[in-house]
């Protein structure tokens, strides 16, 4: 067993006869594909166990499920490959270019735009905002008509998108200045706790959940590469200590902003 240099930290057994004669591209693709199938194994086991042992039911549309699994595995393989080819180098190159340019306003504007733009159209957020609007009508905060629902959901979405923009601005400033992250996050937690006691109860669940759904699969790698890139090019910063943390802010500020949103709209 050998550990591949560029896989997901997996160990696979290279079969000489098969691998021989293949181009590096195909070989790398197959290695990633094997890793993807391994990543899907837990889901297969959990679902099979509960379906057959606990619920004691046969699998519905087994061939459809199998086709789906192949799609998921190939998709994951392409994604990871594209990550290393595209998203990571892009985030690092842009971090480098911003540092060279030396314009703080430019960098912070970019951070805000990236956070806002990546969040405002996020499908998971659109779904949760709609649910949130329905919860608000149930709590009699807004009228139960389509216009009020749409407007509430849109404002909720904009609130979350602004909060993620603000989060990336704070996060980038932290990397530039080298502020220790835990003071900011713990301070944030204390603010969240204080706001929770003041906010109307029907918004609390949505607020806490909104922190988790803002960070999409394309934003995360880009933002991680940007943070690590900035921490690498700026003198006196250690990428291991200062590079991460942008996503942490992006999952904390939405909680605060949505709680405040609930207090303003809920009108206590």
């Amino acid at each position, binding site marked *: 067993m050998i550990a591949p240099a560029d896989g*997901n*930290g997996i160990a696979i057994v290279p079969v000489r006869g098969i691998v021989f004669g293949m181009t590096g591209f195909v070989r790398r693709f197959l290695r990633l594909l094997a890793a993807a199938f391994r990543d899907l194994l*837990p889901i297969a086991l*959990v*679902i099979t166990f509960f*379906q057959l042992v*606990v619920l004691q*039911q046969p699998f*519905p549309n087994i061939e*459809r499920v*199998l086709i*789906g*699994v*192949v799609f*998921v*595995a190939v*998709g*994951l393989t392409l*994604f*990871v*490959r*594209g*990550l290393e080819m595209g998203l990571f180098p*892009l985030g690092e*190159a*842009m971090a480098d*270019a911003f540092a060279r*340019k030396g314009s703080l306003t*430019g960098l912070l504007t*970019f951070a805000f735009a990236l956070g806002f*733009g990546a969040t*405002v*159209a*996020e*499908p998971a957020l659109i779904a949760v905002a709609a*649910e949130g609007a329905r*919860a608000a009508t149930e709590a009699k905060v807004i009228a139960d008509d389509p216009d009020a629902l749409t407007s509430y959901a849109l404002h909720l979405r904009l609130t979350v998108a602004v909060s993620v923009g603000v989060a990336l601005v704070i996060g980038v400033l932290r990397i530039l200045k080298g502020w*220790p*992250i835990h003071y900011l996050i713990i301070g944030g*937690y204390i603010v969240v706790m204080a706001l*929770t006691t003041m906010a109307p109860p*029907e918004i609390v*669940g949505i607020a*806490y*959940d909104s*922190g*988790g759904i803002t*960070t999409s*699969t*394309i934003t*995360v790698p880009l933002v*991680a590469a940007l943070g*690590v890139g900035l921490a690498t090019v700026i003198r006196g910063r250690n*990428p*291991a200590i200062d590079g*991460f*943390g942008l996503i*942490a802010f*992006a*999952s904390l500020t939405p909680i605060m902003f949505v709680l405040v949103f609930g207090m303003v709209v809920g009108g206590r």
Partner: protein
Amino acid sequence: MEILRHTLNTLAATIVDVTPIITILLVFQVFFLRQKLPNARRIVVGFLYVVGGLALFLVGLEEALFPLGRTMAAQLTAPEFTGTARAAGADWRDYLWVYAFAAGVGFATTIAEPALIAVSLKARDISGGTIHVLGLRLAVAFGVAVGVALGTFRIVTGTPLPFYIIAVYVIVILQTYCSSKSIIPLAYDSGGVATSTVTVPVVTALGLGLATAIPGRSPLIDGFGLIAFACVFPIMSVMAYAWLTAWLLRLKGRSEREKPR
């Protein structure tokens, strides 16, 4: 050819989703930075891989995992399965399989989460290999499993969400003061990373199903909160993982020193 149409629709939707990000990147690249990107062609191809890969990934999830996950969540929480009498109210012991399912699904979907793979690869690169990709992912997945299981328990018992979250925050703050400086930002990040494409839909379906099935719970009020749990617990488990690996290293060092020569 239904699946082909589904794939094309999802591909179109994914392209629409990434349009704002690409626009922002392009605007800043072209009008502000005005620097040539190294390997621009390779980056574009990589971007196409990411978008295409994500679209295929989503189609596969929607074909295979999501319908099955939703049906199973509904079946496991149904009163016919749990044996809960509608009138008597819920007893938390009727839902043991639900907690087990929540933990299993939380763990399994997190392992398949592409965003977590991305962050783990970055963490390995900048830590010089001291952080293992699989170790970190297992730690995060374990945290999500515990979080989602506890979250379903909260929905069943109907205890207030802020109570749990505040207790967890206190533990996170205490752990932060005992952790090494280099793991803290990564631990804080892992919460937001764990809940993405795969985990959110399945976990949300579980929460809504549970809140609908249990007498006295409203899906709109009590259905929320599972994501929040899935988001905080990895912070704890990643800090615990770092502490555990450091402790194992120390133990190994000590036993080697004490070896008789």
